[in-house]
């Protein structure tokens, strides 16, 4: 059960192998593209932080380290 808008068609059956076609509305494809773009942007924002930002993160770790 994939959803009301998604149509799955059996195209071919050969022994154990079933070929299916999946027709999904454009909105799902666009959604996936949006997610990918968002992920690209997030990775780029995360890339190569400054040394001071790294120190901030290390400080966060040790601040929680109360033994």
């Amino acid at each position, binding site marked *: 059960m994939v959803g009301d808008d998604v149509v799955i068609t059996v195209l071919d059956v050969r022994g154990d192998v079933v070929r299916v076609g999946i027709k999904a509305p454009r909105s799902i494809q666009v959604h996936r593209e949006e997610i990918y773009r968002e*992920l*690209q942007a997030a*990775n780029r924002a*995360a*890339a190569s*932080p400054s040394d*001071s930002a790294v120190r*901030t*993160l290390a400080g966060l770790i040790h601040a929680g*380290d109360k033994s």
Partner: protein
Amino acid sequence: MTAVETLPTIDFVAPLPGFPEHRRFYLVNIDDSGLVFSLTSADDPELRFLVVPPPPFFPDYTPEIGDDALAALGVDEAERLLLLLVVTAGETLRDTTANLMAPIIIDKESRRAVQTVLAGSGFPVRAALSA
């Protein structure tokens, strides 16, 4: 102390979105805590990502890794995987976030890795690290 050059590389079976040219990375300790690592490009040491394992930061984070991702790494069970979250370090703690929506999964045995996208999971791309 092991020189970075002698560390075995982690090989991404698909590149990180946004960085199509980089597939080989080293995982380097940032400090002694074992909680923060630098995922540094083997081909360009200027490129690195700060990554953390989910616990202790997100103790309840137990994402379901899809079969596609497992197949991409050539494993059939999630138990062999190391999970790492990409951190966007801000200048203050409040601006520091981890990406729960797209964790990096690494097969400990083969050192193959991929950043898998948990679309529709509801996990945020930017989850505050300071609880």
